[in-house]
Structures are given as C-alpha cells and as structure tokens.
C-alpha cells in the first residue's frame, strides 16, 4: 500500500462514520422537510399533494412577515452585541497591562454554561413591568420610561434578543480572544516602532487579521438569530399574539398547535434557505483570502 493509499484509507475511516451520521440526522430530515412542504398534512393522516400552495399562503400570512422581521432583528442584535462587545473585551483582555484577566475571562463565560431556561427566567424578572430591575432603575433615575418590555410590540423581540446575546457573548469572546492571542507579537512591535497608537494598531492589525474568526462568528450569530426559539418559548410563548414569533416559532405553531405539518415544513424550508443564503453570502464577502503568518 502506497503512502497516498494509506492516507486515503485513514481519511475514509475517520470521515465516513461522521458523514453517515450527518446524513441520517441532518440531510435526510431536511430533504423530508422540503418534500412535506408541498403537502397538506396534519402529521398523522394521509398527506395530499398541493404543489406550491403552502408557499403561496406563507407570503399572505402576517406570521411570516413578523417572523422574518424578528429573525433579522434577532440576528442583528447578536451580531452587534456578541461580536462587537466580544471584540472590545477580547482586545481589553489581551492587554498585558490589565489586572485580573483570568477573573474577567471566567466571569464573562459563566452565562454560557447556564441553562437557557434559567437565563430566560432571570431576565423575565429583570424585565418585569411591575417592580422589575430595569423599570426600577428608570424610576430610581427619576425617569418615567417604564415599559412592558416583553409585551410591547416594539420592545419584545429586542429584549429577548438581548437576553440571548448576553448569555452567549462569552463564546464569541473566547473565539476572538484566542484569535487575537495567535497574532504574532512582532507585528505589534513593528507598529509600536512606527508610532502607531493603541486604536490604530488594533484597527490596522488586530481587526483585519481576525477576519477568518469573524467569518465563523458571523455565521453562528446570524444563523443563531434566525433560528432562535428557546428564549421566546420560555419568556413570551411567542406572544402576545405573534409579536415575538420567529420562523422556528411559526413552524412550531403550524405543526404542533394547528396540526399543519405541511405548512410548518414550508416555514422550515424557507428558514433553511434563508440560513444557507446568509452563510453563502458571508463566505463570499468575508475573509476571501486565507491569512497566513
């Protein structure tokens, strides 16, 4: 056996089980979802083929447009909060002059290991209209800007997205921090000799060299936002009405509450396409060239 054959055999041995598992658990269900989206099906009885009717109905459904808007808002909040703040904190934590870096790193990561339900309950208490921490703070400052954070048409999705952003920011922080630490020190030394300021150094060296990390962070933040479900399920049950629906919630409503699995599958299919589009777009636009030191 030649060394190339040995290499190929090793490749096969280690990738085939994962590929098989992925096909059974992900690819086949996605294909089935697309197939079912062309049927009128209650999940139990015989399905009837109805062509594109479910998709036509989607575009006339208020839930669809609310879900689309909320998914984008959710993704936007995650990108800004998790990647933006993750970058700032990553830069701060990588500075050798900062004391207690280990403590801060651990602290920022703690919410990640907490259960999503626990975090949601915590923020329900903070957002509580009557005596919640947030409204109490406004009252303490003498402001009358008290809100029904989770029930308001214009505040609900932002409040829920912030909760998710707060919980998972630590993941992005760790990724960005690790990437910063892998940037060769001599680049910073050269910048220092050239007289670059702190911010110039990071704008010209750190951030451009993080582009591959940002690509990954953007994909998980945006698809995470579009796929969001758990927080709204615990915090608002999608309500009041449909104001905090996302596609996953719309899918849940159609399949499990209205017994319309075909229609729910159409919503799921749109979600898959939406996530794929964003992933392709990010891959095309961000970090097009591989960085090597």
């Amino acid at each position, binding site marked *: 056996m030649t060394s190339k054959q040995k290499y190929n055999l090793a490749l096969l041995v280690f990738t085939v089980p994962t590929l098989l598992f992925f096909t059974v658990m992900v690819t086949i269900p996605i294909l089935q979802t697309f197939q079912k989206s062309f049927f009128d099906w209650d999940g139990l*009885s015989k399905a009837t083929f109805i062509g594109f009717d479910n998709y036509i109905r989607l575009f006339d459904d208020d839930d669809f447009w609310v879900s689309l808007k909320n998914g984008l808002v959710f993704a936007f909040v995650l990108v800004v909060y998790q990647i933006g703040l993750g970058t700032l904190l990553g830069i701060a934590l990588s500075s050798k002059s900062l004391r207690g870096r280990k403590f801060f790193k651990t602290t920022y990561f703690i919410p990640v290991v907490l259960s999503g339900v626990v975090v949601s309950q915590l923020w329900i208490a903070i957002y509580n209209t009557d005596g919640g921490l947030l409204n109490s703070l406004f009252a303490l400052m003498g402001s009358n800007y008290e809100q029904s954070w989770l029930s308001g048409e214009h505040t609900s999705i932002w409040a829920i997205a912030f909760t998710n952003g707060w919980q998972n920011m630590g993941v992005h922080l760790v990724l960005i921090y690790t990437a910063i630490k892998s940037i060769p020190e001599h680049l910073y030394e050269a910048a220092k000799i050239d007289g670059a300021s702190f911010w110039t150094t990071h704008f010209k060296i750190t951030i451009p060299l993080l582009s591959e990390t940002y690509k990954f962070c953007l994909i998980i933040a945006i698809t995470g936002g579009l796929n969001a479900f758990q927080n709204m399920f615990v915090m608002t*049950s999608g309500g009041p009405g449909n104001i905090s629906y996302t596609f996953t919630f719309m899918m849940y409503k159609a399949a499990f509450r209205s017994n319309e699995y075909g229609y729910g599958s159409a919503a799921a299919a749109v979600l898959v396409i939406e996530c794929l589009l964003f992933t392709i777009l990010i891959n095309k636009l961000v970090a097009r060239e591989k960085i090597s030191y």
Partner: protein
Amino acid sequence: MKNKTLKPILMLLLLSMVALSLAACGSGNNKADNESGSKNEAGGNDAAKAVKLKFYAQYSGVEKAVYDAAKESMKKVMPEVEVEFEVAAQDDEQKIKTYAAAGSLPDIFFASSGLIETLKKSDNLYVMDDVVKENNIESLLNETSKPMLWNKDGHSYSVPNVGQWAALIYYNKELFAQHNVKAPTNYTELLEAVKAFKAKDITPLALFAKEKWPGVQLFDMAVVGSEPAGVKKLDNGEGQFSDEAYIQATNKLAELTKEGLLSKNAFNTTADDAAAQFTSGKAAMLLNGAWSMNNIYEMMGDKLGILYTPFSDADKVDQVKWNMSGGGFNQGFAVSKNSANKEVAAKYAALFSIEFAKQRVIMLADPNSILVEDVKPANGLSPVQQQYADDSVNFKTMTAFPWGLENAKFKTAIEDNTQKLLAGQDKEDFIKDMNKAIEQARK
C-alpha cells in the same frame, strides 16, 4: 510504518466491535422481554390473563392521589390488569401526537376534544361503543353528563372523567367592600369597577395570559351574554366573526383593556402568579375554571365570591344569567386502536373513568359530579363549592374551554389574536384578522 497502517484499521475494527456489542445488548433485552412474555403466555391461568397497560395521564399534583385511589379500586374489578402511569406533558399535546405518528400510542390516554378529532381522522382511536354498552356506562352518568360520552358522529371514543366545569370570575369581597365598589352584575358595573380599582392602583383582573387559553375564555365570557354558544359556534363552522355577538364582545374587551383591566405584566403572568396577586389583595378579580375554587377558598376563606354575569348588558341579565362559558364535551380516557390489548384496555379505561370521577368527588370535593350515584366528599363542600353546586343546577347553556375546540386552526388563531386584542391591538384589526383566520380554518 506498518504500525501507522494498522492504526486506522484497528480503530475501525474497535468501533465496529463497540457498535456490535451495543446492538447485542439491545437484542439481548428484547430477547429477555420476549422470553418473559412467552413465559406469561405459557404459564398458569392467572399469568396468562395478566395484562400490563401503559396509561398516559395528568398523574401529578393534586390529581395523583385520585389516580392512585382509582387504580386501587380497579384492582378489585380487574385484578389481572397492571397499570403503569406516564405523566402527561403540558406541551400542546405534542408528545401524544408524536406517539401517534410513531405508532406507539400508550394503551390508555387522556384525550381532549381536539385530540379526539385528530386521532379519529388518522384512525388511531379505538371505538368504545361496545364497551360502553356492555358495561352500562351511560346508566352510571347523570343526565347532564350523558352527552359527553358520545361524539358528534354517534360513536364513543372516550369515557368522561370529570364534569362540565364552568369558567368563572372570582372576586375578593373584602377588597370590593373596602373600596366601596359594587360587585358587578352587568357590564356597566364591571366597567365602573375596573375604573375604580385602576384609579386605586389595584389590578382589576388577574389574568394568567402567559398561557393562551385564559384570554380566549375571557372573550368567550363576553360573547355568551349575546350568543349562548360562544366561540364554540365559530369552531363548529357556524356563524361569522362579523356577527353582532362577536363584535359586541370585541368592543367590550377593547374598552375594558383601554381602561386598564389587566396588569401590563399579564402576558408574563403564570397561573400561580395570578392566584398570588388575587389572594394577596393586589388584584380584585381572577379568571379561572371552577376547578380552582377549593384551592382559592383555602387561601381566602369567606372573602371569596363568584361573579356570574359581569359581561352581560344590564337589560339582558335575567335572560342570560345562566349562559355559562366553559364546559366539557366528549373528552376523557381513550384507548389506542393499535394497543395489543385494546379490548381489555377499553374496559379498564371505561370503568376507571367512573372510579376516577367518584374519587375526585371524595378526595377533591368536586361539586359537579358526572355520576348518578350520590357520592359524598370526605370533608364536605366549602361554602363557595356549595354555592356553585346549587347554582350549577340552573346552568342553561355551556360553551367550551379552548382545549375543547375541535378546529385546531381556529383555536390557534383565536388564541393568538385575542392576546393581541388584550395587549391593546386596534379592535378593527382584530376583527379583520379573525375573519381572515376563520376563512382559512374552514378551508
């Protein structure tokens, strides 16, 4: 080099062995099960008759003891049956529907009207007509409960286990007296009461609107004063949302919402939170089913009162006083058509339902028994339960709780849209959305 070639192959072999041993463990268990089953079949008469049934029900909270007591009584009637309870999930019936989709429904399970329609359509329900007749179940039920046994298609798919609970507005008598507010007997007085309590920074009505059904029930209560069938009529495919009764109800709820009927936090309020607000005097009224009256009475004593007609127009109160919102319908313990022991399960479910109803009266002091037999509660009825028991004789019509609605699309639409109305949505938009939803639901 040789070792390097062997490594992946050995790894593959090792993984295959692990997979095979796991599979062998699984097969071994099946084999053991099969052997155990064969032994039962081949054993003596008692062993041959022994049947183990899986029972999916609300085996938790205060009802756990009722299930246990009914199971104990059933041992005398059908000693050959051994029942294993599985606690039902509070999940919009997702789990039970998944069981049905996978062809692994439990032998016996609690089925709401909506679930009965879904499982009937997919041919998953055992028709219990013969069991009901052979065991004279109908003769054991009182007149008001007999219709609950039969589906609209004339067959029986489940035997009822509780009576027709009404939806009620409870009120705190002491709080009303303290603030000189008259307990409302009609809509005008309700509106005055809402304004009065709002002005005193007391939540007029505690509604646990984090759940979807209380909002629909509130709307249904506002409808029954003009249309006795409530929202159930629309669910049945009759009438339109633009009918006068529904428009009036919409107007009333929109007006009450504007005046501050609910707390701003109502949509994040759970049943326990709402009960705590009400019993602590932070809310003047509470909406819940009649099943909760004993619990609330234990916390509030004689301060607890019931309002029957707070949404009715003053000039119609006498005519519509006993048009009640809420109700039971054809729901109860049902049997899977695919059960290996469906005949035994059907007989057990039917007789268990009767025993369960009896134990509910004895242990939980149900004031609205479904039985002909005059069962007495072990600790008697509380004054408020006694009042309800006396009044329930006068109930003229009932509607349904949302889980009793059969058209899932309509149910989902009215649940979501009513929440929006109560959150302050424009009433014209609400009517427009409901008309569109009804059109879709009836396709």
